[in-house]
């Protein structure tokens, strides 16, 4: 019996030694499809790829076609029976709307990536000083871009500036002003640190003019008219983006007036197949509301170039339905690719016109409006001798026409000028004045009880 115990004892001991002291048994090789974070920031081309990842996320956010916001405002109506989309159509979102969730989440994903990039760059010892500045400046621009939309849609948002999960998971909402201050700070720094040229091909990475252009928009939202005018003037006078191209070229890749576009892999927008009907007989999914169409003067070139229509026959009677047609590619386009237009010169003219009108520089405002109207074609120039109010109304109308269906301009304009109740209240039976802010997605509040739901939800 004794030798047996010995055997047993020996083998057990051997096994124990084998397994517990030899960590190699459970050591696995590095991943083949993942790059460890320190390695990302050890090389400028890999670090640049991490930056492009942020642009890629930005381009994939539901904002890029902003069809939801066009439904929510008075631009489009939806003709099918999708519940979450109909909530946008009714301007009555539920706290658990399944489209509101990614709207919020994708922008915070952009912010996380910006913060991660800035932290990674700061910790890097291998990247050159110049690369560090460039990468961080673009990240600041992107963070500002995301925060700008978040705060305008949701009013009360947490300001996230680090990647610390423990802290962020419990973050509280910041006053809107604090968010705007951060947006302005980020943009001012980006403007200072970025060059005027574009990195890489096309105009799909922010330069300092992109920072200026967004800054001009932020200022005009906040009534800082002189600042807005100054930033917009800078962009306009750079002469990089003018003269305004013909209407049919505005949304093409590399468009003359583009200050920043977001790259599309195949030359068309992800939403295009949904927005543009497949054939000329079918009912479009998104139909332009009559009110918007009727605002166009009958010969306005934008009406014929940026709006298309289908004639649909149901039970023998024909009906014409218009749909947005700023972007025309609905599948891969080799010859004339379209990129997502993020910032363009026309808006800068409109910003400057509004800022000028507010400062009672009516002539300057009218001149800027007329730049837009000239390009539009088919419509008369405005006269100089109008009141401030009339001029502001003209700016608002021109903004509505020029920027329809883009990035929620209409909704945000109505909101910042306090006209939501009047306009949407009459149009939509389910409108409530609290709908001017979207609900914080319900899951966010469930998972972070420090967040407070917006009023009315």
């Amino acid at each position: 019996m004794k030798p047996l115990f010995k055997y047993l004892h020996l083998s057990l001991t051997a096994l124990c030694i084998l397994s517990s002291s030899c960590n190699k048994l459970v050591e696995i090789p590095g991943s083949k499809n993942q790059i460890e974070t320190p390695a990302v920031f050890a090389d400028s081309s890999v670090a640049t790829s991490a930056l492009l990842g942020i642009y890629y996320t930005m381009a994939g956010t539901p904002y890029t076609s902003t069809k939801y916001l066009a439904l929510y405002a008075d631009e489009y109506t939806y003709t099918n029976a999708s519940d979450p989309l109909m909530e946008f159509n009714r301007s009555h979102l539920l706290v658990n709307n399944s489209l509101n969730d990614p709207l919020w989440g994708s922008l915070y994903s952009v912010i996380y990536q910006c913060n991660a990039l800035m932290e990674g760059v700061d910790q890097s010892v291998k990247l050159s000083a110049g690369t560090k500045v460039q990468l961080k400046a673009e990240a600041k621009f992107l963070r500002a871009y995301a925060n700008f939309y978040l705060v305008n849609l949701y009013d009360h948002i947490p300001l996230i500036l680090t990647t610390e999960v423990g802290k962020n998971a419990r973050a509280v909402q910041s006053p809107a002003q604090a968010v705007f201050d951060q947006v302005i700070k980020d943009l001012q720094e980006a403007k200072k640190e970025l060059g005027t040229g574009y990195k890489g091909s096309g105009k799909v990475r922010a330069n300092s003019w992109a920072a200026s252009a967004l800054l001009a928009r932020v200022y005009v939202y906040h009534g800082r008219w002189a600042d807005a005018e100054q930033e917009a003037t800078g962009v306009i006078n750079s002469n990089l983006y003018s003269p305004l191209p013909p209407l049919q070229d505005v949304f093409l890749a590399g468009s003359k007036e583009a200050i920043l576009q977001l790259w599309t892999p195949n030359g068309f927008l992800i939403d295009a197949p949904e927005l543009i009907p497949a054939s000329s007989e079918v009912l479009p999914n998104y139909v332009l509301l009559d009110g918007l169409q009727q605002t166009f003067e009958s010969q306005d070139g934008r009406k014929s170039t940026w709006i298309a229509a289908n004639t649909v026959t149901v039970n023998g009677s024909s009906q014409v339905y218009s749909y947005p047609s700023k972007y025309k590619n609905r599948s891969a386009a080799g010859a004339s690719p379209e990129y997502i237009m993020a910032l363009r010169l026309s808006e800068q003219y409109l910003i400057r016109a509004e800022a000028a009108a507010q400062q009672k520089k009516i002539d300057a405002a009218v001149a800027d409006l007329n730049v837009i109207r000239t390009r539009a074609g088919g419509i008369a120039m405005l006269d100089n001798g109008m009141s401030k109010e009339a001029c502001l109304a003209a700016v608002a109308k021109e903004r509505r026409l020029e920027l329809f269906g883009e990035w929620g301009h209409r909704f945000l304009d109505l909101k910042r000028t306090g006209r939501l109740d009047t306009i949407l209240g009459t149009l939509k039976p389910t409108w409530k004045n609290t709908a001017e802010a979207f609900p914080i997605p319900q899951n966010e509040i469930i998972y972070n009880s420090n967040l407070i739901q917006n009023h009315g939800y």
Partner: protein
Amino acid sequence: MKKTIQTIVLAALCLNFPASAQQKNPPPSSKHGQVKGKVISLKTREPLEGAAIQNINTALTLFTDKQGEFLLDLPSGRYRLAVFLENYQTEYLEIRMPLKEPLVIELEPKDNNLNEVQIIGYGETTKRLNTGSISTITAKQIENQPVTNVLSALSGQMPGVFVQTTNGLPGGNINIQIRGKGSIAAGTNPLYIIDGVPYDGSSPNDASSPLPGNYIGGTVSPLNSLNPADIESITVLKDADATSIFGSRGANGVVLISTKKAKAGATQLELNVQQGFSQIAQKPKLLNLEQYLAIRRAGFANDGTVPSADPTSVYYAPDLTLWNQQQGTDWTGYVFGNTAHSTDAQAKVSGGTGNNTFSLSGNYRRENSILKGNNLFERGNLFSQFRHISQGQKWNISLSNQINHQSNTMANPVSSFGSSYLLAPNYPLQLPDGSFNWYAGSNILAELNATSKMKTDNLVTNLNLAYRPLPSLAFKINTGYTKTSYNQCLIFPAIALAPGSINYAQYGTNSFESVLIEPQVDYLLKLRASSISFLAGATYQYRSSQNQFIQASNFSLESVMEDLGSAATIDSRTSAFLPYKYASVFGRVTYNLQESYIFNATLRRDGSSRFGPGNRYGNFGSVGAAWIFSNLALLKANLPFLSYGKLRASYGTTGNDQIGDYQYLSTYSSPGTNIYQDVAAIRPSRINNANFHWETTQKTDLAIELGFLQDRIYFSADYYLNQSNDQLVLYTLPQITGFMSYQANLPAVIKNRGWELSLNTRILDQQKLRWSATFNLTVPTNKLQSFEDFENSSYAEQYQLGYDISRISGYKYLGVDPNTGKAQYAGKDGKASDNPYYNFTLGKLTPDYYGGFGNTFSYGNVEASFFAQFVKQVSRGQGLYTYPGTGISNNYSFIQDRIASPYYPKPSAGAYDVYYPNSSLNIFNTSYLRLKNVSLSYHFPERLLKKLKAQSLKLYAQGQNLLTIWNRNAAVLDPESGVLTDGLSHNSPPVKSFVLGLQLTL
């Protein structure tokens, strides 16, 4: 325990060799003492043929003839004999040669199943001596059920094991939960072990690829690959005593699957063919067209609005203004209305002489599905097994090999699937001009043109080698190699998509290989009145998986969409390589005193590569004890009806490492379409957490087992308490953190407690007439015991301290506001509010109790059995968006009663009462009793068999899910399956099937 194993080995070795053995029988010689012997059954007194009589002193074996007789020819002296026969208790006796009179040996039949072999982790024992909580079903119970996935056969059969057929499609997923939900989010799959080798329980198309979300079959159960007919038994290990030997992987219970072993005997051929058909088990009661339209019209009338035919109008109602007002469609019947046919053919050759046995079996199964469209599931298996036991039992070698191929082709109407049965009854699939109507956002008829093709190949090879230098000492090595490759292609031609969409296809592959090496040492120490057995072993496992996913679009030729080269655009592509290593040492000591007191202790140390350096090793262990008090002389004398009584208790720890690989590492990776500005783009892969560590589950089990009247009545009751700490979860995060979750330990304690009762009786047990019945019941409770800093955690709103973690939360309905006629829901303070509070506790998904009962009758050649499963539970109603009247979708017919009652609001076309689906009004009692299985079989008589020169011929009929009793006034499709579409999982309801088969053994 070792004795038992030895017995089994010998029994298997010596069985059924009358012919060959008798040749070995030396001719009678007058020099020696000769004695004639006879082996008979203790019960029937009939002679037993083929019993092995082994002379333990010389290891010489001989066998009884047809009359049960043998001739012993030995020199004078004392001998020890052992007599073995399958299904009989081994008998040991001592004789002194020469014998004066003939020897009569009585063998006790083993229909007393307490002495049956009980498979446990890394070994075997008997039900009598077992110290853990274990349930088993055998081939017989599996054979009675015409199931595709063997897990389905467990439904209701075992206490503490909750099996839910969440998907009735062939190849669909089956949920199995052993003793409650211990973990909030990490894998709750039990550990599957096939013949000693772990089998990956995670689905080959799990969340790592987007395919299952886009495929109506949802996630695929890996156990589909097994052919139920090749399985000898399935054993579920529940408590710490049974599972701790599997250490880190035992927290969710362990399922041991053992395949049918090759048996010696004349080579025989067994053929089994069956043919069946299936239909949907249960249809929900929905409104017909007339009822539906009446509610819709009332909705508009109550609002004072007029339905419009203009699609841009707020009051657009094509169901009232444009569509057919006379004729409706039963959409449940339309979508799930196919009669599915199944064919299953099985052939097995087995046999072997002496110490070498083999078996070879092949299976082909083909079935289509109840779903509309062309669907075909095919499975082929080839299972081979070879065993060798050397003379004197020093070597025991067993090699088995399973090759399996599955193909599943289906129409894939995925976007219409979830809501399909609740379409408005007059919804036209086609418009007057012949085009498809996509108003609802989906169109099942168009979408039937989308297809899914899936292929799974599986190879499982096991080699068990045992060397036994002494009868009490064995060295074993268990090695296994598993390879699974899975390949799926989803094709969406333009016609299957909303008008104008661009055609696309998705291709996914996933393959994994796993190698296992497990050396073990067994030693049995026999003392005077007791025995101690030792087991020591080690495990090394390496698994690597590799997956790829590609989405391509814009195919100019739709006929070749399986060809990636024909795509104009590649939308997205990802690939991953995931290695996993696992190493452990383990040991067990079992002390058996006088076959009455048994103590058992196990220890395991595990290391896993899934944890960050520094957190990789964990220790697990258990102690268990059993006292067979019925062996007390006092009880034997005073309680003669009590034939068996045992108390057992165990306590121990287990763990869980079902988490992703590399989760501790901070990395960047490609998001799929990894290009921006024609340059590769990368993004952070996750929020990493370098600190997560092993979770532990402490399991306590107390049980009593009682047998009455020679164990004809067997009763057992278990009380269990499982306490899970530091569960590894994908800790939910608000999206403001940049991600929706990250890998972490949950600082919580979750308690699963419950009672498990089971009763087995042999009511009639005569030669010709037999009747047995079984019953089991489980009463589970689940509770979130504690949670560190609960108020500030992501779970503060989802869970409640002290309440079940399967909590259902939602709005609380308070009746109709008498002034407005609208529904009122409670605010946080409980009073009616315009901003109702969403987080009232409305119920829990954990069943109050569940169980099953069955009866088996046999009379002569006829056998009949049935088995039913029952669950007491509540569910949330499915598929609704608003209160009826609003929106163009159908509703359940009980809604008519609600509308008629003043307690509920009147229908409104424009009210959008969206709280309703998430409110207390949408919680239903979905308790059910389901006749899971009915089977009837007839064995053809001996006379006919002789004519056919066959050994046996059986004709059988089986039915599955034939009847369900439940309250059909609930807003669910089927009480057993989950919602049709829930994130990644798509679940078809269970089917009822009827099968006719013939089994022939030559």
